[in-house]
């Protein structure tokens, strides 16, 4: 639970950006860079808030680069994102070297007085640091925003069928810029949550390398939905924790195999959620007897992830 906020924030941020139609592939490096920035800024100013603000600003800035490259300059989103991944990672190491292994401020624990004494659930849910509460609130807010608000509907429209959004007077490019930036800022918040709460401080390697790629997979697994995405994030954190537990349970397996377990499991999950779209499955389904088919189709439908229709597709104006 305590380790989940960074992943949750990053998943939400990427979900927003992708919902508007822009893939920000730079996540893996961006999380590192913003973690470093957050720690350095919080340490320099001795205010946590400055750390969070700086990380969110850097996140938005990288989002801006992705947006400029892909929306204004029409370059391949994946290319730009991939390069930024490496750039951010290396920048984090270079710029972070002076603050590595130094003590710094960190987010204090904040049990909620009213609820913490509930049996079982109390200590798990309500005796956490504020970021945990914030990440839960952010998940709910993101869901609410997408499902219940007018700008949220506009955002979904822009990623789904930009031409139609345009016909309804929506400035699709502006919307995409906005959410790429906002998404980047949320990812930055995730990075800050790493270095100011979950894994206080900075070092090289910092220990979250690879997490960004997982976040990208979780977004797919979550079917671009904040709630399902957050569930995926919790699942991943749980798997990571299991790795340590498994070491004591299965002493014969080399310990280093466990930390990598979540990764193959993630691909399997991806395969499960996307395979239903493929032609041979469709063809195979058609051959099944009607009764079985309906059952299988229902299962596949439930698992199915279908991306925003215009994800990664540049907007062609007439």
């Amino acid at each position, binding site marked *: 639970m305590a*380790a989940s906020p960074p992943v949750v924030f990053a998943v939400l941020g990427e979900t927003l950006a992708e919902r508007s139609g822009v893939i920000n592939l730079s996540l893996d490096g961006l999380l590192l860079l913003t973690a470093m920035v957050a720690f350095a800024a919080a340490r320099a100013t001795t205010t946590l808030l400055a750390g969070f603000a700086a990380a969110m600003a850097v996140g938005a800035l990288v989002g801006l680069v992705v947006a400029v490259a892909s929306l204004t300059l029409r370059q391949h989103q994946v290319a730009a994102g991939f390069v930024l991944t490496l750039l951010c990672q290396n920048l984090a*190491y270079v710029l972070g*070297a002076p603050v*590595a*292994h*130094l*003590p710094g401020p*960190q987010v*204090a*624990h904040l*049990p909620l007085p009213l609820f913490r004494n509930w049996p079982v659930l109390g200590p798990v849910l309500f005796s956490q*640091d504020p970021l945990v509460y914030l990440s839960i609130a952010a998940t709910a807010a993101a869901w609410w925003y997408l499902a219940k608000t007018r700008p949220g509907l506009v955002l979904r429209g822009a990623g789904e069928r930009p031409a139609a959004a345009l016909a309804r007077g929506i400035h699709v490019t502006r919307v995409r810029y906005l959410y790429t930036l906002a998404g980047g800022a949320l990812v930055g918040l995730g990075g800050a949550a790493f270095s100011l*709460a979950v*894994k*206080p*401080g900075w*070092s*090289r*390697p*910092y*220990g*979250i*390398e*690879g997490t960004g790629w997982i976040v990208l997979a979780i977004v797919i697994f979550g079917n671009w939905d904040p709630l399902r995405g957050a569930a995926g994030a919790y699942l991943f954190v749980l798997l*990571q*924790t299991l*790795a*340590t*537990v498994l*070491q*004591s349970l299965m*002493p014969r397996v*080399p*310990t*280093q195999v*466990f*930390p*990598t377990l979540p*990764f193959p499991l993630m691909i399997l999950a991806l395969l499960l959620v996307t395979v239903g779209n493929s032609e041979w499955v469709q063809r195979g389904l058609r051959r099944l007897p009607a009764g079985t088919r309906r059952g299988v189709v229902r299962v596949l439908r439930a698992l199915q992830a279908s991306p925003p229709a215009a994800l990664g597709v540049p907007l062609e104006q007439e």
Partner: protein
Amino acid sequence: MWRISAWAIAAALGAVLAAPAPPAPGAGAGLVFGVVLVGPRNDHGWSEAHFIAGQYAEKKVPGARMVYVDNVNPAAKPGVTVPQIVDDMVSKGARLVLTTSDDFKDGTLEAARMHPQLPIINVSGDHAWKAGRDYKAPPNESNFMGRMEYMKMVAGCAAALTTRTGKLGYLGPLVNDETRRLADSAYLGARYCWATYLRKSPASLRFKVTWIGFWFNIPGQTLDPTKVADDFYNTGFDVVISGIDTTEALVEANKLARAGKRVWAVPYDFKGACREAPAVCLGVPYFNWGPAYVKAITLVRDGAYKQYWDWNGPDWKNINDPDTSAVGFERGPALSAAASARLDGLIRGMGAGSIVLWKGPLRLQDGSLYLRAGQVASDQQVWYMPQLLQGMEGPSK
């Protein structure tokens, strides 16, 4: 466009090559020695201890100058090998190279064979130990190591005297002779103080080792030490003794202490490690490599260098003397005064020879006999520690 940029890069490279080469550094008087570090030079652990020793030697030996490369590990510097770095250091005028990791064993051997005239020292290795099992170094390669075992015993003792749950966690790096003997030492110290000072049954002390797989965290390749420490603390282990090069256990303990948990940590390697989180630091067993560096440099300077293998112990008169003691224990602010007094007793006893913990009867984890009753372990027996000891939890290999 692409062609243009390619040519531009090529041209730029060429232009700089054509520029006059910078003056070769180290071409002056004095003695240049190279230090190859496995981690960052500011890791608050093993590598920083070596880096500081290099600076110490620069001060102590007139004219000595250090060149170093840090982060020599596949995660940070892919494709870089020890022989390459040694070559490079030689080209910079190095007349002695110290490779400061067990991980550099193979590379050092290769480099030593490639540069038969170059004194080269692998810290922590045994290739130059004639009485050892793996003697194969060419005459120019030496080894030295500190007898950290004693300080690990002190660390174990401090942990045992502090724990309120009777559960001690040991955050182990990878599994080999060295790491087994250090974990065993910590256990012996803890058990001794638990039984002798607290008068509790050794069976009631739990001591669990979790190996992460390397000297520090390499994401995806090792267990995350932060998570391992967290797991220890969340399952009732209230003191974690770190055997790895970096300070995750201390940081995590600090984080949890702020959240109201009563937990402590014992970092490793570097004298200043407690500074990162004084409130939960019981103390740190550390290496003081300075004197060993000075010895090596002096030998080379005086032309008296011959292959040697040193296993340097503490200066029992003052284990924290920077000029004489190879290993030490710096007490942390979280250590209680009472426990501190008892540590004094332990240290005095070990120095005087009245307390010998490597002494039988001791059994290994699989139940086989390690030391008969009254038998004191030889250097070989300690160095080539085959297993964890009976009473410890965790894999032995």
